[in-house]
């Protein structure tokens, strides 16, 4: 048992830190560090910088242009990126569809799609959920009817993150209604420019446009875009869920958020003293810090344990539950730290902000919006209720 980083790992961290410091655009870092929303261009700029350095897909095997970093290196990279305010890498292309294409796709698909994912030329979105298939994903109804050289796809996808930015969608569709629901699902790659696709924005409670509904009306998808075998899509989807969840706990992000919270708590004044001296508040910060300390180690334990034998996945449910709860608590405490200034939604300087607001315009900005937006993290990616079911069934055998 050894929790120390090796010399090589320390040197690796130094290399990563140096690269980020020299190359991460200031304006992007500032947005991320102050909890502000990013636009597509912010993600693209950083992605291109990484790609040019050969770090476009750090978790991919070398044969596809990845760095083949081990879990500890990936963890160090995520921590350094989060600390410096680098945008999180959107998982849909590089971490979700790419492993499926690598493992179950054919050579033509790998040659066509993978280079464009790693370079950032193609943006991907995930066509899974439907209005009537949320937690019960297997009951999905979007149909794909085989007709000669293509599938004819009809249906509706929901909660599709960044579909309005995406070039491609990986889509779970129903190709058979016989037998078990799971046994009739296929994995299709769909060009978002296909005729018959309509993307409708769904605005969240904080006013942000992140997710969409995607309507598919007689969309023709070439059979070449079927990944693996027809009716085996559920297997590929499960593989995807358990695979490479290095950052499902979002430890790096939460460490940066905790640091931001502490800064705010030192600057805010309550009863004439810095808020951090208020024991009631400070204890809550201390407790969430403890949770995060524990999660950091649990995360590493899960990532480094390859001896379990069964399909990877159920342990990631622990990471998702704790990670999301910690993330939410951090946003809540940050909002609470502002006291009454949690109420205004504008980022215009408030009266106290003419240079003098305790938190400053930047750190305090967006705190409530982030709290509101973050209510989704215990719901998306498999709600925390479903995650508990997974642990109960797959780890505990209940």
């Amino acid at each position, binding site marked *: 048992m050894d929790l120390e980083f090796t010399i090589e790992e320390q040197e690796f961290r130094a290399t990563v830190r140096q690269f980020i410091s020299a190359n991460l655009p200031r304006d992007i870092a500032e947005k991320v560090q102050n909890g502000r929303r990013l636009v597509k261009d912010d993600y693209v700029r950083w992605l291109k910088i990484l790609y040019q350095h050969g770090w476009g897909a750090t978790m991919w095997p070398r044969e596809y242009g990845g760095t083949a970093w081990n879990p500890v290196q990936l963890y160090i990279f995520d921590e350094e990126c989060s600390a410096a305010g680098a945008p999180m890498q959107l998982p849909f292309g590089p971490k979700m569809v790419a492993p499926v294409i690598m493992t179950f796709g054919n050579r033509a698909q790998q040659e066509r799609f993978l280079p464009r994912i790693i370079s950032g030329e193609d943006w991907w979105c995930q066509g899974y*959920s439907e209005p*009537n*298939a*949320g*937690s*019960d994903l297997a*009951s999905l109804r979007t149909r794909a009817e085989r007709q000669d050289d293509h599938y004819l796809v009809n249906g509706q996808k*929901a*909660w599709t993150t960044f579909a309005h930015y995406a070039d491609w969608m990986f889509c779970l569709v129903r190709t058979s209604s016989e037998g078990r629901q799971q046994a009739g699902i296929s994995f299709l790659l769909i060009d978002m420019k296909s005729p018959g696709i309509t993307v409708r924005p*769904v*605005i*969240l*409670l*904080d*006013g942000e446009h992140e997710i969409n509904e995607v309507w598919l009306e007689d969309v023709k998808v070439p059979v070449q875009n079927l990944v693996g075998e027809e009716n085996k899509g559920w297997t590929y989807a499960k593989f995807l869920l358990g695979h490479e969840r290095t950052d499902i706990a979002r430890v790096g992000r939460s460490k940066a958020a905790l640091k931001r919270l502490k800064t705010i708590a030192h600057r805010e*004044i*309550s*009863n*004439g003293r810095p808020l951090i001296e*208020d024991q*009631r*508040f400070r204890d809550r910060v201390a407790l969430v810090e403890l949770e995060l300390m524990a999660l950091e180690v649990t995360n590493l334990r899960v990532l480094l344990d390859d001896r379990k034998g069964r399909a990877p996945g159920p342990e990631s449910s622990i990471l998702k539950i704790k990670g999301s709860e910690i993330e939410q608590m951090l946003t809540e405490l940050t*909002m*609470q730290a502002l*006291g*009454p*200034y*949690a*109420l*205004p*939604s*504008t980022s*215009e300087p*408030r*009266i*106290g902000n003419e240079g*003098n*607001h*305790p938190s400053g315009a930047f750190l305090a900005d967006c705190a*409530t*919006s982030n*709290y*509101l*937006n973050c*209510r*989704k993290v*215990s*719901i*998306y990616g498999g*709600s*925390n*209720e479903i995650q*508990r079911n997974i642990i109960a069934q797959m780890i505990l055998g209940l």
Partner: protein
Amino acid sequence: MNFDYTEEQRALRDSLQRFIEKEYSFEKRRALIRSGESFNREVWAHFAELGLLALTVPEDCGGIGGNAVDTMLVMECMGKGLVLEPYLACAVLATTLVSTAGTNEQKQSLLPPAAEGGLLLAAALCEPETRYALDRITTTAEATADGWRISGKKALVLGGPSADKFIVSARTGGEANAAEGISLLLVENGTPGLDVRAYRMHDGTHAADITLRSVEVGHAALLGTVGKALPCIELAVGQALAALCAEAVGIMTALNDATLDYMKTRKQFGQPIGRFQALQHRMVDMVVATEQARSMTILATVKAGASDPTERLKYMSGAKTYVGMAARTVGQTAVQLHGGMGVVDELIVSHYFKRLTMIMATLGDTDFHLDRFSKALLAA
């Protein structure tokens, strides 16, 4: 002892309820928010017609002379209807401040137009650096030949953007945090030196931060007795806290109804999700929390006028603490049980959640009031 409402109270609640259902639908409200309006004159006029603006005004000042229970019923409706207009700020807090602190002349001059809807008053009691404290006042009012000169900053003035007059707490004497030496002064909107910076809040309502730079007002602007305003402020804020708790209970009740309906109709895995025990228990917890919060609100309401300030503090701060915690539980659970639908703007659930979140940080958050309630234990 009974917990019944009078016939008049039920009639008032029912007519307000009807008005909100017809004229203040969810879609109409979203349109109001989109338009950026902070205040709708027609709605305010209708509140005046219903007698709502006269509720907290004494009969001899052109009001109805209602009691805190009347206000509680009204506020529950305002909560359920997610009404954006500054009823609490103008028709509860500000009017109570005037009737508590003002001279007879001032009451006769200010309260009748307020009750009729023609005058909007907003209380400016807190400051940017002092969070919720009502006694940490650094805004100063210097005596001049013609009256007073006021300088300072006031924060989160509810109803500020649409106010005709501000009631500003300022220090006319005493040390920085002393209870003595705080006065209330009326400042007309548009007075030279007064800067009103309005902003929207996350729930669609509006507030303002105001700066006073050597604002000159006459002698008559002093509300009541110089230096003795703090007890009046605390009494008025206490009434407002009870009202705010009632608004929260109205929202929580509506959230429970909406969530229960969703659990019965939303099907996954071949059955309504309300069949899953894990979710049933969470739903039950929401209902239990709401009933407890309702009880605390009733307590605060009947004690809001108590003459002993220590007793009042116990019930007002106690209620705000408790109801704040219940609001958190009910709000967060309602969103979670709605799944993705709980976080979209299209559905009312997220709007209820946002308003509850704002209420939790208004007139003192849970920490602030728990601190006050808890410190009272030391005295025992």
